[in-house]
């Protein structure tokens, strides 16, 4: 297996044909604060004549707070998450500034003093990782994505629930799910591995750590006992959560599950001197517009699959789901079915044993039987 650093091929400007799919979940009555039951969710695509579909704004309103997710494909795919403590905050977009080379201040959530938490995630480089092309530098003119597509499916939720598609991540009203689907791209080698590089804003001196949580529960993602999460702040005011599994078929089941490995986060400067390919990050105008000129990012990369066994080469399809949201991440619990079966399985013999014990105790008071005379 190659190490992700050296053999990665860069992709300067982002994809020729990204497609954003939208899912809409609109609901009934709102409820509670950040971390509470339901929210009123709305999606809008703010338009501008030349860039009609490159921005998606999801607004999840609760009685005391609002969550804003701004997804964009201007530049690399990115999302800005903002949480405010009022149900009346709005997103204001200054398109001329946003589309200019210096987009600082082009995006804002008003009123500014109501912002409780904000962060961003940028998917800087989808790339082909291939052991056979180890160490080759160079740009990528090979037209890998000529016939394929990289799709970002975004789903926002109004209430807690569980996704129907594996890996069936548990979501709440404070979360948003992204499904990354890579289809049809022609790999460069026989057993090329794909991966993706993800950047997030560096907060504070070091970079956060990806936590691997091991659990006993693999009900919803068979044979995957691990949950990876990246927390912003402590106590966590935001998170990114995913299961280290990626599926190589649309019919996502255990046969098509591949491993997904994440490298640790390392700090990256947006521009390094002298500028080298390996270290310059594609900039997202939306992130720059909201946060101002940012130099410190923390990046990690995910590798999909392994060099042996099933992989992308089977059906030229890969799908990976990740959940991001605000507040503490949702925690999986055992399903009621399992708890019910365990209750019966342990309860019935237990009760019977108890009954037998009691009956035996009572019987001791009876006189012993006569022995038959042979």
């Amino acid at each position, binding site marked *: 297996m190659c190490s992700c650093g050296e053999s990665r091929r860069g992709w300067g400007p982002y994809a020729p044909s990204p497609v954003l799919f939208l899912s809409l979940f609109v609901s009934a009555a709102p409820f509670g604060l950040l971390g509470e039951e339901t929210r009123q969710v709305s999606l809008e695509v703010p338009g501008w004549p030349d860039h009609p579909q490159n921005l998606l704004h999801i607004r999840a309103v609760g009685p005391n707070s609002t969550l804003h997710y701004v997804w964009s494909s201007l530049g690399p795919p990115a999302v800005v998450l903002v949480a405010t403590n009022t149900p009346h905050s709005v997103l204001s977009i200054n398109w001329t500034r946003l589309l200019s080379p210096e987009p600082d201040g082009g995006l804002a959530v008003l009123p500014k003093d109501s912002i409780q938490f904000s962060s961003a995630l940028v998917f800087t480089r989808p790339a082909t990782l291939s052991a056979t092309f180890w160490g080759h530098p160079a740009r990528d003119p090979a037209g890998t994505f000529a016939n394929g597509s990289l799709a970002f499916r975004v789903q926002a939720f109004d209430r807690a629930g569980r996704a129907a598609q594996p890996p069936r991540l548990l979501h709440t009203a404070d979360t948003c799910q992204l499904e990354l689907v890579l289809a049809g791209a022609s790999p460069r080698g026989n057993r090329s591995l794909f991966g993706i590089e993800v950047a997030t804003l560096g907060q504070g001196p070091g970079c956060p750590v990806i936590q691997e949580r*091991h659990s*006993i*529960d*693999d*009900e*919803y*993602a*068979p*044979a*995957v*006992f691990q949950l990876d999460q990246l927390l912003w702040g402590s106590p966590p005011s935001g998170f990114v959560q995913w299961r280290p599994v990626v599926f190589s078929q649309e019919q996502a*089941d*255990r*046969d098509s599950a591949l491993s997904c490995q994440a490298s640790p986060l390392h700090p990256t400067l947006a521009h390094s001197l002298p500028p080298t390919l390996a270290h310059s990050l594609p900039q997202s105008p939306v992130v720059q517009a909201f946060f101002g000129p940012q130099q410190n990012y923390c990046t990690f990369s995910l590798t999909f699959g392994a060099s*042996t*066994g*099933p992989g992308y080469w089977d059906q030229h399809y890969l799908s990976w789901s990740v959940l991001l949201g605000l507040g503490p991440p949702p925690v999986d619990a*055992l399903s009621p079915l*399992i708890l019910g*079966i*365990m209750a*019966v*399985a*342990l309860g*019935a*013999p237990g009760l*019977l*044993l108890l009954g*037998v014990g009691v*009956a*035996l105790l009572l019987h001791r008071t009876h006189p012993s*039987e006569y022995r038959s005379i*042979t």
Partner: protein
Amino acid sequence: MEEEGEEARALLAGGPDEARSGAPAASQVLSALCDPSRLAHRLLVLMLMCFLGFGSYFCYDNPAALQTQIQRDMQVNTTKFMLLYAWYSWPNVVLCFLGGFLIDRVFGIRWGTIIFICFVCIGQVIFALGGIFNAFWLMELGRFVFGIGGESLAVAQNTYAVSWFKGKELNLVFGLQLSMARIGSTVNMNLMGWLYSKIEASLGSAGPTTLGATLLIGGITCILSLICALALAYLDQRAEKILHKEQGKTGEVIKLTDIKDFSLPLWLIFIICVGYYVVVFPFIGLGKIFFIEKFGFSSQAASAINSVVYIISAPMSPVFGLLVDKTGKNIIWVLCAVTTTLVSHMMLAFTMWNPWIAMCLLGLSYSLLACALWPMVAFLVPEHQLGTAYGFMQSIQNLGLAIISIIAGMILDTRGYLFLEVFFIACVSVALLSVVLLYLVNHAQGGSLNYSTRQREEMMVSHTE
């Protein structure tokens, strides 16, 4: 030498007294080995009998040792993978009744053994060819043929043992045979994965051909067993001529109509048997990947821990046998064994504790249950129905294994390992309920299943007066 001669007389009634003196040592040893009435010869025969079952038990668990490779190379999901175990069990639902009949009336013990081992060898070869030709249906056929020979071979092995060792050593011989079988399973678990990687390295790639080659090499153990069977047949025939000993018979009489006479305690014992064994063998069949995925073990370590149940049962079966013989109270021992298995599966399901603990507990309880459960049938059933009762018990055990193997595979594909473990816990719970009910029924009927050894001896004495 005197003692040897006396021992030979005591253990093999009617054997001629051999008091040789004055002959040189080397030829004395040789003559001891060649004389069927002498201990040395019978030890040779014992060794051959033990290796008789080695090949069959070695190859039975080949799928478990190579689960990852089979699922990857043949591109099957877990449900289809478990069919390899189900097909082994299907023929034995019927053959358990016919084994005794075939050995006593049709083939005779010598030819019977050779024929059964030939089925084992041919089955394993077909299984391997399924890999080489990349045809999963051929692998299933191979396991079916393998199954026809495998279980009946155990009956043949036992018949040989009774024929040569009737008397006090019989339990020891049964124990040794079982231990050898378990050693075969253990060696398989730890060897086959390594063998596959070696063949992959020499052939240059993984794939169905590599798998088939590995299985063929594993089948060499079956050839070894075949040689033992041929040698054993020759020695048995020779002993018959020298000692005028009769050819061994199982003495089993199967009358299916006897089934209606089975009492409630016996049916409860059947339920315990099925409910218990379906959480041991299918679990071991699927265990390797469980230990790799949940506990992060390497492939080699996962194979090792999967074989712990067999490793422990090899020495502990005779020990527990002695324990149960000395103390009696079979139902209490069965209760202990079933409860320990329940605890073991709960540890594996709901905790991340080191699985070595749980697997050792499983191994101990598995050995204990075998020693305490099967003799109870003999206490409940008159001698002329014993063959039918044991045949029926093995038949439904195989039926349960065949069905539950498939269900386990399906559960794993759709719901994962936690749900599978909960399912197994439910099965053990059914067995546990049955044990408690058995205790109640036995107590209410004034039965003798739970007597201590002394009580049982008193009962035997009072019956013969």
